[in-house]
């Protein structure tokens, strides 16, 4: 039971980072291969504060978010100002992600590659759920406001958006900062959940997983990426008995999504109670239709 609850907590934590990234990648249309770095920054900032300075947990989390946000400005200013797009921006973030990891491995306060053991266990399951729900709610509000609409406009047609008076740099920067702060929060929670962090936990593998969850979940959906994250974490866990096949399952999920849901699990839609009701109605109608044929 503890184990299942543990998996749920991890899903909640990664949901926070993924939902933030959904704003940046799904809604603003820029790909990042370095968001694990923002999780690392949040994790280390928060952990160092509680570990060395006995700071209260909530303040440490906030500090981690702010630190991630500030560093995202350093990344975003040159890249977004120069209007780097698509692959070029993704490569810049890939380099950024690796650079942050190498820096963490070589700083003394982070204890280098050995990592920080013995971080206090503050992130219980209710805490993780609370923050996941909070971030989901805030993100939904963000997307449904003028800020979210501007981001979607920039994704849909940057030229038309600019001709409508939308400042591309500001919109992209805001999305980047938002996603970095979410990743920072996820990192802080992660550190106080595992009680141990080391730089190697935040490699490009984690970045790729976050981005692929957004793409697989649906570019332009908040709930889609959450489902994808849950799948990406839960399925390999279920297959722990067949250890060899875990990564294959991960690949298989991606391939199946690409074939059957090319625009992501939820596409551009959101999962709502209304949608579930419609789905159930559709399934039951399908059944009766099948019976008639028989």
């Amino acid at each position: 039971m503890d184990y299942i609850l543990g998996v749920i907590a991890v899903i909640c934590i990664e949901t926070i980072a993924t939902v933030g990234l959904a704003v940046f990648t799904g809604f603003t249309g820029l790909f990042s291969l370095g968001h694990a770095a923002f999780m690392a920054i949040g994790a280390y900032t928060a952990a160092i504060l509680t570990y060395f300075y006995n700071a209260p947990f909530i303040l440490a989390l906030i500090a981690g978010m702010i630190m991630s946000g500030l560093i995202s400005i350093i990344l975003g200013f040159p890249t977004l100002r120069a209007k780097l797009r698509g692959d070029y921006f993704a490569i810049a973030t890939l380099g950024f992600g690796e650079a942050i990891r190498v820096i963490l491995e070589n700083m003394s306060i982070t204890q280098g590659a050995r990592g920080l053991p013995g971080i206090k266990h503050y992130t219980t399951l209710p805490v993780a759920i609370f923050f996941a729900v909070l971030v989901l709610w805030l993100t939904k509000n963000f997307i449904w406001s003028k800020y979210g609409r501007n981001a979607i406009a920039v994704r849909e047609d940057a030229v038309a958006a600019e001709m409508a008076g939308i400042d591309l740099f500001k919109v992209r920067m805001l999305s980047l900062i938002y996603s970095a702060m979410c990743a920072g929060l996820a990192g802080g929670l992660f550190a106080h959940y595992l009680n141990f962090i080391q730089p190697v936990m935040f490699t490009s593998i984690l970045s790729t997983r976050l981005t692929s969850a957004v793409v697989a979940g649906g570019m332009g959906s908040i709930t889609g990426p959450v489902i994808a994250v849950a799948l990406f974490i839960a399925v390999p866990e279920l297959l722990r008995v067949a250890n060899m096949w875990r990564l294959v399952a991960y690949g298989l999920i991606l391939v199946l999504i690409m074939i059957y849901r090319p625009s992501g699990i939820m596409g551009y839609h959101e999962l709502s109670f209304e949608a579930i009701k419609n789905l159930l109605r559709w399934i039951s109608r399908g059944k009766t239709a099948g019976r008639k044929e028989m």
Partner: protein
Amino acid sequence: MALIELKNVTKVFGGIVAVKNVSFSVEKDEIIGLIGPNGAGKTTIFNLITGVYDATEGKIIFQGRDITGENPVTIVKSGIARTFQNIRLFNKLSVLENIRTVLFRKADYNLANALLRTPKVVRIEKKLCDKSLEFLEVVGLTDYINNRADSLPYGLQRKLEIARALALEPKLLLLDEPAAGMNPDECLDLIELITRIKKEYNLTIIMIEHHMDVVMELCPRIVVINFGEKLMEGSKEEVQNDPRVLKAYLGEEYSYA
């Protein structure tokens, strides 16, 4: 004083002179046609006015202010809106959201309010929604408000683009081939729409168009561009009877015939 004035504007891309020493001015409440063969540099002129490109030489004066080299966002704010030759809508957004998006400057709530979705946000969003409906009503798209923009038929997409430009409340509206791909009936409809919005919103319009019947119907004054240069400027009768224009459109041989 002219609302907008182009003074000896030149734009060079590498070795290619796309626009060469073009000057013309448009008075307030005027509607002028910008015509010329394909590749003459008409759209480039629009891109120069809206700040997509910086002019290599020359000046663009709008309402007495030099806007040459300003960024597109500032230029839009000062009151110039445009539509595009190849329709550029926010495809995955609904018709209503397409308009509501560009009304963002009227939404005076801040990020904190937006994140917490305070009653103020709900109230302002509702107001923007009503405002968007007004613009959609003008172009006759109220039946489609919840359709996705890319699901609209071509002619309606053009109208939505015009509505979106109107929502920016411009003083000068630049229409880039609004009648492209339209049949004669749709053209008549468009002529009526342009006349109506011009009056209702006190617009000054510059229109690029290849459908000569539309141009002749709407524009008392026409500027003809050929190979990046201004060939001539005058009333529609003058343009219709000018041998240089015929030559530019139909080639050398015709003018001797």
